[in-house]
């Protein structure tokens, strides 16, 4: 719980942080870029951009078993990124950190490599009504393949999970409970400790979709006790094309591989193959090596700011934004109004102007927001909507950015002839 607005470290200065992000100097339609689409992807600090350049100009090579200098350096960079991730998420073993393309692939890996062998007809998979398609469609597909059933933890009209019937929903037939830590639409921070505990009480596994939480608040995977955790580098200052699946060593060790090919094998003959040790068993083929090399400085940047401070900063900004948006009568905010219970992804609808039109006009004022279903169609339907507009914050955003958002929203209404 965060109580006061200004308790966080003085060192955290979004204005000087902005200076580390070259793209924020860009002008859009003659206005300074106000980037508020951070739940989709975040911008990159110069250190991340520079690390990519450095990789390609100094030590680009393929990894593993290369005996020349470049290959050794590239391998060292990949494994250093793995150690950095392991430390960042709460001090797990490097064997438990698998590099994927992103959160989506991480979840698919589990649905295929664990799900296919552990979920049978009649078993249950438990999700929530607020899942992103990435933590929904792989399970719908698994349920279809296996004959398992899906059950959903419902939400109330304020965007909170309803946990009353939790022990009923997580029935004894439940094999896995897959839940988002922070909703990319509602912003809600879910009580995943309670849910993980309830899953484990039924001997079900718990997968946490941390795509939105890991970038924005301290997440200690070890003390949470989650069995799987998925997230993407590009949503936390890192490059595109790389993400992470954390898995408990004991579970990963028993799993079949997902993709097959080079680097993930032990011995191969023309009709048999066995597998490399963890984590490589799950990393077939050439990984996104430049991506890994640039993920390290992203994590360094966040470490240096301190994830507590990141959370405090966004908490303050979210509180301020909700305050200001609530003054606009035509705007309805989705999800919790109390910033203690939510992150900085704020979705809303205007009663007169369609989200797409809003977004188009906001762009004229340099303000980048997202409009649509944000990969959560069922959730929107549950809320009686087909789409919404979403502004979402990160470390470089300021109150000035919120002011520009509110100004542009008013302008948009005016443009379409509303007061």
């Amino acid at each position, binding site marked *: 719980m965060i109580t006061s607005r200004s308790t966080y470290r003085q060192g955290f200065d979004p204005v000087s942080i902005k200076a580390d992000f070259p793209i924020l100097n860009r002008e859009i*339609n*003659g206005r300074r870029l106000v980037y508020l689409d951070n739940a989709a992807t975040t911008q990159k600090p110069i250190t991340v951009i520079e690390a990519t350049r450095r990789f390609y100009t100094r030590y680009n090579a393929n990894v593993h078993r290369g005996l020349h200098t470049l290959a050794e350096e590239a391998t060292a960079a990949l494994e250093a990124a793995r150690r950095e991730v392991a430390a960042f998420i709460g001090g797990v073993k490097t064997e438990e950190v698998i590099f994927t393309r992103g959160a989506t692939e991480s979840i698919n890996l589990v649905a295929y490599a664990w799900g296919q062998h552990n979920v049978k007809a009649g078993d249950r998979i438990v999700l929530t009504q607020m899942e992103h398609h990435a933590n929904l469609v792989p399970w719908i597909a698994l349920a279809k393949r296996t004959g398992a059933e899906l059950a959903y933890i419902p939400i109330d009209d304020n965007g909170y999970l309803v946990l009353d019937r939790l022990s009923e929903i997580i029935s004894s037939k439940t094999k896995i409970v897959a839940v988002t830590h922070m909703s990319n639409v509602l912003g809600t921070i879910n009580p995943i400790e309670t849910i993980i505990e309830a899953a484990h009480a039924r001997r079900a596994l718990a997968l946490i979709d941390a795509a939105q939480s890991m970038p924005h608040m301290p997440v200690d995977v070890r003390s949470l006790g989650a069995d799987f955790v998925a997230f993407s580098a590009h949503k936390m200052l890192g490059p595109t094309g790389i993400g992470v699946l954390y898995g408990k060593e004991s579970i990963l060790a028993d799993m079949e591989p997902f993709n097959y090919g080079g680097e993930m094998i032990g011995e191969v003959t023309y009709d048999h193959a066995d597998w490399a040790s963890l984590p490589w068993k799950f990393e077939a083929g050439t990984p996104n090596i430049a991506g890994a090399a640039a993920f390290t400085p992203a994590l360094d940047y966040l470490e240096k700011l301190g994830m507590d401070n990141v959370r405090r900063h966004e908490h303050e900004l979210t509180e301020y934004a909700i305050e200001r948006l609530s003054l606009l009568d035509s705007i309805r905010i989705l999800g919790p109004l109390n910033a203690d219970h939510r992150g900085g992804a704020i979705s809303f609808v205007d009663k007169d102007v*369609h*989200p*797409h*039109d809003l977004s*188009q*006009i906001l762009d*004229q004022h340099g303000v980048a927001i997202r409009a*649509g*279903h944000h990969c959560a*169609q069922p959730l*929107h339907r549950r809320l009686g909507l*087909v*789409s919404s507009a979403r502004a979402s914050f990160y470390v470089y955003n300021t109150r000035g950015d919120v002011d520009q958002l509110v100004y542009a929203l008013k302008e948009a209404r005016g*443009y*379409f*002839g509303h007061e």
Partner: protein
Amino acid sequence: MSDAIDSLYRDVVLDHYRHPRGKKKLDKVDFRNSGKNPPCGDEIEVELQLDHDTVKDLSVSCSGCAISVASGSMLYEVIKGKSIEEVRKIARVVKAMLKGEPYITDGIDFGDLDVLEGVKKFPVRIKCALLSWTTLVDAIDRAQSGNNSGMSTTE
């Protein structure tokens, strides 16, 4: 506001958006089709009353952004009373115009439709403007093949 945006949201477009024509109940419906852009959530319902090869009357009801609503409303105005052959021609011209391809208007009355030309500078919005047209043409295809209702998408 930039010129581009003003050419997207021309006054005529905004007028159609605020006061969409064609949202009405027909006394008799020969053919019906609904269309959807799942990624944006835009939805449209088209009903046709045919008199031989002519669209005697139609109703268009659209929920979505300004562009898709306005496009549907303009469609209503232009199509009403046209022959099926003319409808197909107009639909082809609209498609070409939206995609920035060359077209000839061939002396047909296009009503306000030329204002949709501004959409081509906004690739993401082309689908919005196209939805009602795709849905209409599909309805006509089905009508001519004797299949009287269905579902279209611009995906």
